[in-house]
C-alpha cells in the first residue's frame, strides 16, 4: 500500500526523518553563546601550559636554560625532552608508522617545533615563562625543496633513522626518503604509452596548505593520582583512537583513561592526530597533580600542526587520436616535512591516491609515490579530502584538461567520451578500487544544461577574438571538474588505524515513555550529527527525531568508533545507526505481534508503528511498544528496547559531482572575478538537504581559498612566510563567491540507506574547477599548465610569461 493520505503525510512530517530540512538541535546553544568548547573548561586548580618553539628550521640544541623561567611568578615547571624521556614520552608514534619528537631531542627539524613546555598558574604567566627560557641553537643547513631532498649532498635530517634503510612501509632509497608506494600494472601501462597516438606529461603540484579550523587545537588533561585515572578533554575528531593511543604510550590501562571531545570548533582533518600539546598537557598533569590546559595560538596551529597536501605529481595520460584514454601513469613526490605524521589508514602511506583514475575508464594505470623528509612541519592530513583524494582529483582533472587541449577537444566532450558508464558499475578500476555506483553522464549533462555550457563556450570564443583584437584585456575561463571520490574508510580487510579496524558504531536505547538516546562512535565538528543521526533513526524505527537525543564524543559511554574525517561518518556510522535501529525495529515487531495477538509476519511497518495486514485499525505505535518493552514482553524475551551495532563496511562509497566555474581575469592586474560557480553533487541518499547544502557551501569556500591563494609557504631558510591570517588566505564574505548547488541521486547499493557522504566532495571537486578555469582562460594564448595557487600576482606572472604584459 502506498497511499499518501493526509494522515500519512502528517505522521511522516511529525517524524522529521530522512530527507527533510530538519532545523538543527545544536543551534540553540551555539547562537546563545552556550557552547562548551575545550577552552571553556575550567577546573579547580587548573594550570596552563605553553610552548617554547624553535625559530630555526634545522638546528642542534646546545643547551636549554630554564633558571630564569622558573623565577617568573606563576611558573611551576618547565618540561624538556629530558623530563619526557623519564616517562618514555620524548618521542611518540605517528599514525603513519614513523616516530615524532614530542619535545626537541638534540635538534629541531622545522621552524616553530616544540622545544620546551612551560607550566604556570595562568596563561599570562606561562607566556612570560616561555619568553624567559634560554635556548642555545647551532644552525644547520636547511632543506625545503623536496626535489633536492634525495640529492647526494642533501642535509641529513633524521639522526634517529641513521643507518635504518627500512621504514614502516618498506625499503628507503636515501636518508631523507620515507617510503615508495606503487600500485597498478607497470608493464601494461608502459606498453600502452609506447603504442599511444597521443600522450601528455605534466608536473602538477598541489601546494602545501593547512585545514585551519577557526578553533585551534587544545586540551585539558587531569590526572587523578588517587584513582590512577586520566581524563582528557580535547579537540579530537577521533576520541576513541586518542584514548587507545594514550593507553599504548603511557602505563595507564585504557579503562582508566576518559577521553572527551566536547563541542569542537571545526576539524577539517586538523584534529585527527595526536600533537605534542596533548602529550605535554597529560605529562604535566601527572607531574604536577593538577589539571593542565594547553591552548595553541593561530600561528602555532598554522606552522606546527599538520599541514595538508604538498604533492608534486607528474601526470601522464595516453590516448587514441579520437580521444579515448588508454593509460594513466603518475609519479608523486610527497613532501611530508620533518616527520611522517600522515593521518592515513595504516596500509596506505599515500592514502587512497589510487583513486587518481577518477571518473574515467582507464584500461590500465600505474602510480608510484615517493615520500620524503624536509625541514617543514610534519604531516600531512586530509584537509576535507578523504585520504589524498583531493590531490588525486586535482591531478586527473588537470590532466584531462591538458589532454583535451592537446587533442583540440572540448574538456566536457573529452570527459563524456571517457566516463565510466552507468552499466559498468560496480566498476573495477585499473588501480584496484571497486566503485559502488555512478551515473556520470546524467549528472554531467544536467550540469551542462543548467549553466548553458554551449552558450558559455560561444561567449568565450567571442571574448578570445576580442582579446586578440585588442578590444579587451579580460580573458574568460570555464573550469570543468567531474570528480569521483572515495570515502567511508573503511572495510576491515584493508583499512585500519594502528591496527584498529575502521568500523563504526551506534548504540540506541529506547526509554519506557517512547523517547530514545543514541550514542555514536563519530564526532561532529560542525556537521550536525545531533540533528541528522536522529533523522535516520526516526525513519528507520518510527520515533520522532525530536524525541531522540544523540551523544558523541565521550569515550566512556559512546561505543568504539574511529571518529569523523574523510567523510566517513555517514557511510560507516550512518550504516551502524540504521542497523542498530533495525535491530530495535525487529524486536519491536515481535512485541507488537504479541500485543496484537498475531504472527510477526502479519505485521507491516507503517511510519511510526506496526499495522496488521488487512486489518488497518489494528495498530501499535512505537510509543506503545516502548512502554510494553518494559513490562509486557513475550515470554522468554528480555525486557528493554535497545541495540548496538558495529558496522564493518563491505566497501568504500564513491560520491561524485559535476562542477563548473566561470571566471574572468584581467591580464594586466591578474585580478579575477568568479562570475558563476555551479556544483552538482551526487552523494546517494540525502539525509538532510539543508545540511548537505551547507556542507557544499563550506567546502567550496575552502576550495576557492586553496586554489586562489591559500598556502603554507617557506623561504629557502625554512622560515614560514604565511604563518598567520595576515598572509594565510581565509576569504571574508566579500571575496567568497555565490554558490549554486544542484544534485542527482544514485544510491550506494551496499549501504543500508544508500547514502555515500558529502562533506568533502566540494573541496575535492572545487579546487580543480577553479584551477581549470584559470588554465582554460589562458590556454588559447599558448599555456599548458599554470600552477596554483592562482593569486593575482601569479596570474600576472603567467600573463608575463606569455608575453601579454611587460
Amino acid at each position, binding site marked *: 500500500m502506498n497511499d499518501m493520505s493526509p494522515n500519512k503525510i502528517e505522521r511522516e512530517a511529525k517524524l522529521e526523518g530522512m530527507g527533510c530540512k530538519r532545523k538543527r538541535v545544536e543551534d540553540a546553544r551555539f547562537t546563545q553563546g552556550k557552547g562548551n568548547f575545550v577552552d571553556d573548561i575550567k577546573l579547580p586548580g587548573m594550570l596552563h601550559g605553553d610552548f617554547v618553539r624553535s625559530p630555526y628550521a634545522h638546528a642542534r640544541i646546545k643547551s636549554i636554560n630554564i633558571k630564569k623561567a622558573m623565577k617568573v611568578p606563576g611558573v611551576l615547571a618547565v618540561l624538556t625532552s629530558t623530563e619526557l624521556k623519564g616517562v618514555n614520552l620524548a618521542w611518540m608514534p605517528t599514525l603513519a608508522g614513523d616516530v615524532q619528537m614530542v619535545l626537541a631531542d638534540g635538534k629541531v627539524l622545522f621552524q616553530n617545533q616544540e622545544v620546551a613546555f612551560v607550566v604556570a598558574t595562568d596563561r599570562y604567566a606561562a607566556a612570560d615563562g616561555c619568553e624567559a627560557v634560554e635556548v642555545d641553537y647551532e644552525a644547520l643547513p636547511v632543506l625545503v625543496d623536496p626535489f633536492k631532498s634525495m640529492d647526494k649532498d642533501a642535509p641529513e635530517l633524521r639522526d634517529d633513522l641513521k643507518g635504518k634503510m627500512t621504514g614502516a612501509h618498506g625499503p628507503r632509497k636515501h636518508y631523507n626518503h620515507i617510503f615508495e608506494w606503487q600500485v597498478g600494472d607497470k608493464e601494461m601501462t608502459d606498453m600502452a604509452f609506447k603504442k599511444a597516438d597521443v600522450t601528455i606529461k605534466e608536473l602538477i603540484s598541489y601546494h602545501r596548505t593547512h585545514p585551519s579550523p*577557526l578553533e585551534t587545537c587544545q586540551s585539558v588533561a587531569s590526572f587523578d593520582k588517587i584513582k590512577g585515572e586520566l581524563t582528557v578533554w580535547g579537540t579530537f575528531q577521533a576520541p576513541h583512537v586518542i584514548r587507545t593511543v594514550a593507553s599504548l604510550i603511557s602505563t595507564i590501562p585504557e579503562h582508566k583513561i576518559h577521553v572527551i571531545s566536547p563541542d569542537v570548533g571545526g576539524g577539517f582533518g586538523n584534529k585527527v592526530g595526536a600533537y605534542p600539546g596533548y602529550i605535554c598537557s597529560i605529562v604535566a598533569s601527572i607531574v604536577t597533580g593538577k589539571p593542565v590546559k594547553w591552548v595553541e595560538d593561530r600561528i602555532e596551529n598554522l606552522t606546527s600542526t599538520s599541514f595538508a597536501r604538498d604533492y608534486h605529481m607528474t601526470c601522464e595520460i595516453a590516448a587514441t587520436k579520437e580521444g579515448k584514454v588508454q593509460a594513466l601513469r603518475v609519479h608523486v613526490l610527497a613532501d611530508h616535512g620533518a616527520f611522517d605524521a600522515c593521518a592515513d589508514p595504516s596500509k596506505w602511506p599515500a592514502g587512497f591516491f589510487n583513486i587518481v583514475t577518477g571518473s574515467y575508464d582507464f584500461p590500465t594505470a600505474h602510480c608510484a609515490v615517493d615520500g620524503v623528509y624536509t625541514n617543514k612541519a610534519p604531516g600531512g592530513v586530509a584537509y576535507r579530502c578523504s585520504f589524498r583524494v583531493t590531490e588525486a582529483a586535482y591531478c586527473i582533472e588537470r590532466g584531462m584538461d591538458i589532454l583535451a587541449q592537446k587533442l583540440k577537444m572540448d574538456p566536457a566532450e573529452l570527459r563524456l567520451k571517457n566516463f565510466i558508464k552507468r552499466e559498468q558499475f560496480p566498476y573495477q578500476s585499473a588501480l584496484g578500487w571497486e566503485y559502488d555506483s555512478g551515473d556520470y553522464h546524467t549528472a554531467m549533462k544536467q550540469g551542462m544544461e543548467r549553466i548553458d555550457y554551449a552558450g558559455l563556450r560561444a561567449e568565450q570564443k567571442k571574448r578570445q577574438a576580442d582579446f586578440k583584437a585588442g578590444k579587451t584585456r579580460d580573458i574568460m575561463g570555464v573550469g570543468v571538474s567531474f570528480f569521483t571520490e572515495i570515502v567511508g574508510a573503511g572495510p576491515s580487510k584493508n583499512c585500519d588505524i594502528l591496527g584498529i579496524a575502521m568500523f563504526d558504531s551506534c548504540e540506541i536505547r529506547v526509554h519506557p515513555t517512547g523517547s530514545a538516546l543514541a550514542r555514536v562512535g563519530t564526532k561532529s565538528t560542525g556537521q550536525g550529527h545531533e540533528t541528522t543521526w536522529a533523522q535516520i533513526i526516526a525513519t528507520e524505527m518510527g520515533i520522532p527525531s525530536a524525541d531522540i537525543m544523540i551523544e558523541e564524543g565521550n569515550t566512556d559511554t559512546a561505543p568504539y568508533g574511529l571518529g569523523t574525517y574523510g567523510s566517513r561518518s555517514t557511510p560507516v556510522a550512518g550504516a551502524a545507526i540504521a542497523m542498530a535501529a533495525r535491530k530495535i525495529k525487529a524486536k519491536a515487531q515481535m512485541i507488537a505481534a504479541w500485543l496484537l495477538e498475531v504472527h510477526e509476519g502479519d505485521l507491516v511497518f507503517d511510519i511510526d508503528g506496526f499495522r496488521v495486514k488487512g486489518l488497518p485499525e489494528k495498530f501499535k505505535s512505537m510509543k506503545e511498544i516502548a512502554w510494553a518493552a518494559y513490562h509486557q514482553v513475550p515470554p522468554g524475551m528480555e525486557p528493554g528496547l535497545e541495540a548496538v551495532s558495529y558496522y564493518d563496511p563491505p566497501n568504500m562509497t564513491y560520491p561524485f559531482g559535476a562542477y563548473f566555474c566561470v571566471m574572468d581575469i584581467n591580464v594586466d592586474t591578474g585580478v579575477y572575478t568568479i562570475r558563476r560557480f555551479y556544483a552538482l553533487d551526487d552523494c546517494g541518499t540525502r539525509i538532510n538537504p539543508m545540511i548537505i547544502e*551547507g556542507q557544499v557551501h563550506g567546502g567550496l569556500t575552502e576550495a576557492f581559498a586553496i586554489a586562489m591563494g591559500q598556502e603554507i609557504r617557506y623561504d629557502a631558510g625554512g622560515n614560514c612566510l604565511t604563518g598567520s591570517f595576515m598572509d594565510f588566505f581565509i576569504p571574508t564574505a566579500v571575496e*567568497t563567491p555565490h554558490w549554486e548547488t544542484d544534485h542527482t541521486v544514485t544510491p550506494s547499493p551496499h549501504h543500508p540507506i544508500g547514502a555515500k557522504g558529502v562533506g568533502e566532495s566540494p573541496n575535492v571537486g572545487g579546487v580543480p574547477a577553479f584551477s581549470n578555469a584559470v588554465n582554460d582562460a589562458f590556454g588559447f594564448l599558448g599555456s599548458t599548465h599554470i600552477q596554483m595557487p592562482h593569486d593575482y600576482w601569479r596570474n600576472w606572472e603567467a600573463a608575463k610569461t606569455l608575453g601579454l604584459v611587460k
Partner: protein
Amino acid sequence: MSKVHVKYKVNGQDVEGLCEPRTLLVHFLRENLMLTGTHIGCETSHCGACTVDLNGKSVKSCTVLAVQASGGDVLTAEGMTNADGTMSALQEGFRQMHGLQCGYCTPGMIVRAHRLLQENPNPSEEEIRFGIAGNLCRCTGYQNIVKSIQYAAMKLRGEEFKEAAQ
C-alpha cells in the same frame, strides 16, 4: 605588576573585577566573568570570533585592554537572548537559515550582525557581506549567514521572510 580595578555593564548587569593592565577584554570576559560565549580564533586581530558590542560599536575584544574600556557597556552573545528566554530575531534567523555549523564564529558573527542591523535596518546582500567582512567563518561559506541576517532584518521590520530566488 599590580592589578587594576575595572568596571563594566555586561549584558545589562553591573560587574567589576581585578586584572592586570595587560589583560585583554576577551580574557576578562571569558576568565573573570566566565562568559565563554565570546571566542578566540587568532592573535592578529583578523578573525572576529571575539567580537562584542562595546558602547554601541562592534569591537574585537582581543584587541582591547580590559582597563582601556573600563566603564563601558558590553553586549555579548549570551546577552542577545530575549528576557523571556526566547531566541532573538538574529538567533532565530541563524537557526532557520542554517547560518552556523561548528558554532565557533557564531557568537561574534551574531553580535556583529546585531550592530550591522542597527546601522542599517535594510541592508542589501552586498552591504551584509561588507558588513560582516571582519568575521571569518570556515564552515558555512557565508551564504546562509547572509540569509540568516536577511531573515532577522525582515523580522525586525515586521515583515515575513521571503527567500530571494537563486
